[in-house]
């Protein structure tokens, strides 16, 4: 049987990382409260399984809620900005400015307004992830070929016609591409907020475990975060391929 190395590569690399990690910690005799071995992390995972699952779900739904708001809002604002040059010129600097504010600095304000809990987590996820969606949708609209616009305008097409027939379908690959970035950012946002002000969620659990010196559990939380992140990214990547396969016709990245 021939081995498909391209398909095997991700598994080999992942397993290899854990093997190297395990060996390095054991051979160098690193203390568990500095860097636990993967086996210790695995044991902690088994021990705290139900708490891990509960908190993972909390983080998952706050992330998805924030991300969902970001998609609706980002799509709307992107279309609005892409509609007109003046709107674009007016709002773009504001958005860049807003995006430059580290969101960790916003969480205390959200806590001030809404108290600790899930609301700041959802809002942080939303605030951190809408920007790439807006920029990508607006870019898709801004890059309509002028010839295409001429063909349709000469026939008496209204701006709305050009948007629905050309602009919106055209910006979809940009939109779906941006979802991959946005979901990762939303995840960062919700975990960030949970570590600052929450009583549930993986971020909160990590903080508690750290305070109790349960270092293997801290790492178990990290791995749970990684798995969740990969899962959500994969769903977005699949959605992108599914919805805008026509835009991926080049064999370049294959």
């Amino acid at each position, binding site marked *: 049987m021939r081995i498909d190395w391209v398909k095997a590569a991700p598994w080999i690399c992942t397993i290899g990382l854990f093997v190297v990690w395990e060996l390095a910690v054991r051979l160098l005799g690193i203390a568990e409260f500095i860097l636990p071995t993967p086996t210790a992390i695995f044991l902690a995972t088994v021990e705290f399984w139900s708490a891990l699952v509960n908190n993972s779900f909390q983080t998952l739904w706050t992330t998805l809620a924030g991300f969902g708001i970001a998609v609706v809002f980002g799509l709307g604002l992107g279309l609005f900005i892409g509609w007109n040059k003046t709107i674009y010129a007016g709002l773009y600097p504001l958005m860049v400015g807003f995006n430059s504010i580290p969101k960790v600095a916003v969480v205390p304000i959200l806590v001030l307004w809404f108290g600790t809990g899930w609301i700041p987590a959802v809002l942080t996820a939303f605030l951190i992830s809408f920007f790439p969606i807006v920029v990508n949708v607006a870019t898709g609209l801004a890059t309509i070929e002028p010839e295409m616009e001429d063909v349709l305008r*000469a026939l008496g097409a209204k701006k709305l016609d050009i948007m629905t*027939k050309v602009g919106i379908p055209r910006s979809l690959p940009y939109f779906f591409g941006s979802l991959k970035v946005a979901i990762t950012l939303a995840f960062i946002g919700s975990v960030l907020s949970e570590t600052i002000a929450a009583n549930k969620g993986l971020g909160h659990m990590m903080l508690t475990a750290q305070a109790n010196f349960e270092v293997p559990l801290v790492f178990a939380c990290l791995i749970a975060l990684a798995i969740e992140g990969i899962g959500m990214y994969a769903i977005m990547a699949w959605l992108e391929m599914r919805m805008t396969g*026509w835009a991926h016709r080049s064999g370049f990245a294959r």
Partner: protein
Amino acid sequence: MSSDQSFISINDVSLRYKPQGGDEGTLAVDELNLRVEKGEFVAVVGPSGCGKSTLMKLATGLHFPTTGSVRIDGDEVKGPVKIAGMAFQNPVMLPWRKTADNILLPLEIVQPHRRQMRSNKEQYRKLADELLASVGLEGAGSQYPWQLSGGMQQRASLCRALIHEPELLMLDEPFAALDAFTREELWCVIRDLQAEKGFTTILVTHDLREAVFLADRIFVMSARPGRILVERTVDIDRPRELDLLYEKFFVDIVHELRGHIAEARK
């Protein structure tokens, strides 16, 4: 002859593009005068940047003159003319639509087709297939445009320009990006379509042989600001065959035009 008798009449037109800074802007065309009769095939040649594309936009109502007037069928052009089909050097097909759906796009915009599109979908689809067959693209309608070669895409783009049976066809260097053999094939395609359907055609090109082969009349434009320097009637009988390209009288016309262009570039 009164200007109102012509199908298209451009009278003493100048057009200045105003940049956003508020300075003078560039004068794209000036003292432009041009008449095109119904059913005529006209070519416009000139040095690059002479305002040929501006002329296209004026005649289709995408731009309006700063001074002077543009009339079509005697009426002043006040908005997009809606009777024009356009094709460009770049075929600009929508990659998410199959070729047939790309060709049907104009019908989704212009009335009365726009209203009937949903109920008569089958009939329109058949129309698109027939038109595709007439340019030698049988069965290509179900393929995506990016699955077609450059020449095939350009044929499809011609179909899109003609699907709503426009009275006016505007061609902006449509064959410039094609290889010589494909280009000559497409000259014949457009020659036959025009002979069959009789639409008025304005062809903007920098290929002088193309202009002489296809056009009834050729206008030579000056360097910017563009205006008409020379008007040359091509009195070669139709139908014209590709062999003409090597006849002495054909080559003489090309040389004569080349002389005018060289003059215009000075």
